């Protein structure tokens, strides 16, 4: 998986039936230190992520698997949300080693 930040949303009424009821978000890739690097692209949300949150997402065919066996046509789906103020590679605000709690 890769890290990303949610930077926006996309609304679409006419879409593949298996995309109905799923949130379409705009995300930008993050590098390992949490800096935004990539251009915005589209990812489906399977865990309730919101704009501004740091997340990680699965790419390719596995992008469809959060809803398996439903054939969802997604090549990028958010499968996890990072806890705030606890970025894995950065000293977290509590001063402890930046390990994932």
């Amino acid at each position, binding site marked *: 998986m890769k890290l990303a930040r949610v930077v926006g949303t996309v609304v679409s009424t006419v879409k593949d039936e298996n995309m109905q009821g799923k949130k*379409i978000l705009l995300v930008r890739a993050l590098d390992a230190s949490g800096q935004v690097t990539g251009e915005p692209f589209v990812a489906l949300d399977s865990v309730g992520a919101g704009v501004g949150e740091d997340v990680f997402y699965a790419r390719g065919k596995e992008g469809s698997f959060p809803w398996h066996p439903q054939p969802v046509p997604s090549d990028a789906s958010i499968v996890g949300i990072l806890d705030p103020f606890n970025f894995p590679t950065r000293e977290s605000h509590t001063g402890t080693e930046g390990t994932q709690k």
Partner: protein
Amino acid sequence: MILGRIAGTIVATRKDEMLRGKKLLIVQLIDPETQEAKSPAAYQVCVDTVGAGARETVITVSGSSARFSSGLADHPVDSAIVAIVDTIDLHKEEEL
């Protein structure tokens, strides 16, 4: 997935048997901020599965996930249009 705009239609009489009856469109990738086409090099030939029309903004899915869109199971296709975009709401860096 990637945002794009319909830039043209492909007409191909001789093609893979499974592509018969499929609408093939050229989708030019757009920059979500300006909604302008990026460059002529950034495009996809996509199977349209939602009835997209000329110049509409769409979402395309690539790779084997494209075969999960309706009617494309086991087709020789790695890119499909799966949604027609109504609105794009992109937050500025400072707003986050």
